[in-house]
């Protein structure tokens, strides 16, 4: 139904650790289609970060193929890779990584630099995106005057600036309290629903991962498990709790009366 935005085939990545060669990823295969909300999970040392770096065009595969939006990035030199990072993906970091001396709008405008857009266009796009993540009216605030949750919203807006093929989020909830964590996950889920934004989220937070539509478990450099998350039911207009039909706009299931987006689970931790 959808075209793949990420295709990984037989990906292996080896590191030299002193004189010993360590295999971080072993013949890994993964396909993410446009419009998917995917969580990649795994304990530390499972190869999560390596996979993230390869997908983010920061590390090069030892062998295998990585196609981003159909482009083979495995052998691409750095003087072209920056364009892939700029145009095909939007990074969201655990620590938000906003530039402290720029306000929210200017942070969102950053990736649009060098895209040949006029200042007015950049400004308009940034304002739209900030409105989309619920921050209209806070455009002129610098990061230090925004809460952690708000900062991550700005970062998400920034990731969307160039209309990327997918958002690559690295532990996006790792530095947030449970309420903000729930809100950010909800925001990502809503973006996925309403805008069709493809999201690849690397996390070790099982609760956050559970609210995606597809969870992949990475272990020893391989994907060992894959299961559906709560978001899938919602995408199919089903209540994740009782399975009865719901509208996308419903907050509470008309049948079982439980919240469709189970943020309380996130709150409780």
């Amino acid at each position, binding site marked *: 139904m959808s075209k793949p935005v990420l295709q990984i085939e037989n990906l292996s990545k080896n590191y030299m650790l002193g004189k010993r060669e360590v295999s971080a990823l072993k013949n890994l295969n993964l396909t993410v289609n446009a419009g998917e909300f995917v969580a990649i999970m795994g304990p530390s040392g499972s190869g999560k970060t390596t996979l993230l770096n390869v997908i983010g065009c920061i590390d090069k595969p030892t062998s295998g193929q990585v196609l981003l939006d159909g482009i083979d990035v495995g052998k691409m030199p750095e003087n072209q890779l920056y364009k892939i*990072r700029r145009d095909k993906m939007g990074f969201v970091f655990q620590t938000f990584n906003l530039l402290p001396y720029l306000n929210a709008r200017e942070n969102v405008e950053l990736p649009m630099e060098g895209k040949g857009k006029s200042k007015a266009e950049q400004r308009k796009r940034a304002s739209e995106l900030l409105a989309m993540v619920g921050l209209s009216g806070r455009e002129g605030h610098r990061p230090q005057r925004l809460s952690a949750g708000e900062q991550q919203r700005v970062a998400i807006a920034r990731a969307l600036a160039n209309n990327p093929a997918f958002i690559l989020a690295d532990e996006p909830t790792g530095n947030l309290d449970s309420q903000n964590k729930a809100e950010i996950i909800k925001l990502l889920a809503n973006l996925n629903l309403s805008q069709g934004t493809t999201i690849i989220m690397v996390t070790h937070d099982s609760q956050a991962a559970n609210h995606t539509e597809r969870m992949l478990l990475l272990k020893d450099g391989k994907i060992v498990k894959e299961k559906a998350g709560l978001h899938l039911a919602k995408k199919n207009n089903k209540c994740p709790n009782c399975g009865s039909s719901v509208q996308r706009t419903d907050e509470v299931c008309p049948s079982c009366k439980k919240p469709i987006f189970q943020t309380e689970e996130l709150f409780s931790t």
Partner: protein
Amino acid sequence: MGIINRAIRNISRRKIRASLVIIALAFSMAILVSIPAGVVANQKSANDLANNLSNTIGQTGETINQTLNQIDCSLAPSFSGFGFRAADAGTFTPGQGGIGGTRSGGFDPNQFGGGTVGGQFGGGPFGGGEASPMNQTLYNDINNSISGVAAVEPILQASEGSNETVSMFGRTFTRQLTSYTIEGIPLTSDLIDNYPVLSTNVTAGRNLKAGDSGVVLLSENNSAYFGVGVGDTVSILGQGFTVVGIHGTSSASDRLVLYMNLSDAQAVTNNTGYITSLRVFTQTSDLVTQVSTAISTLHPELTVTTGQERLTQLDSLQSTYNTALESAQASIGQTQTTALEEIIVVVAATSLIVLFVMLYTVRERTKEIGTLKAIGFSNSSVMGQFLLEGVLLSVIAGAVGIAIGTLAAPTLSALLLPSVNLFGVTGVRVASNVASTAVVSVNLEIVLLAFGASVALGALGSLYPAWRAAKIRPAEAMKYE
């Protein structure tokens, strides 16, 4: 949000650090501005002094050549140097104290008095003072009994003025400030028509003529001093004279001289029967030696100076001048070497300051740079960002430094450059503007050069840090502590 805007915000983000760096860089730039200004001023002072000296020597030589048939005789006080009145129609009056006597010799005493060179031109700091009066009967002796004499001009010269104490080069001198000098000469048609005894440059009214009495020819300076013009009556030492004309300055030495009949001058100065000098005109210039020997034999008490002797003295002056010029040039050369060394140190220091500050900044902002790389900034745009920051920092400091340097150039160049020995006047720093004609000042050329240097040094210093920044991996964005 442009790259320049970001650079400005980054600099202003850390105000104290930026201020300290800018102060340090600005100081370097101020030095960079001051040193060339000092060198330029040194060079200019030397040139001005050299030109001044050589012009005077040349003029004097010309005058002496025109007056080779003249012999000056006076009862002079002992006199260490040789004085001359540069172009007073050949008047050469050792006893008059040359330059200093009327504060109007060939040289500006403000530049040469008291120095080694000054000593060459006057007996004391400002000349040897008045000559002793002698009996006018000497005139008849020389005029009548020595063969080869064409004419003798008896002269009475007397100056009126006040004393002034001046400090110069750390020494204190009392100098006579002459208000005017009376020069009385016999107004006979023989002398006036045939010999250069009067001013040749009458600018108003008429010159003195034979038989004039009770009248004066004032200099322009006298006219201003007394506040009178042609046709007015001027009171000199209590006696009234009619101003018949005004003469312009044909040489520095006749600037203060008013001319009148010898007998009027003798009467008004209470010197009846006395003169201060005799100027002997020989029939031909090759008779000068013979006549001067005869005068000396007849009146050994007289100091006799011939044009030939004056030429010899001028030659010795020329060689003194040449030596002084060489040593001044060597001194200037030394200053330039020192200036160059200092500029190299300052340039190195400036770029090193930029280098270290920018390296520190890049290190501190590793994560930010990683983030920029991760969200799609190219190596070259990251490099450009940091180059621009370094250049901007340096340019701000450059502007401040140039402003400081422009104001403080005299002080800074005096501190940084060695003392310049200009024509024997040692220990005088040009910057303090004591013995110089040129003030240390920063011109547009130096400002533009310094501004260019601040851009270049900013770029040079931040090149390596910017390159380091460009090499930071995007993975740095994902390092969490």
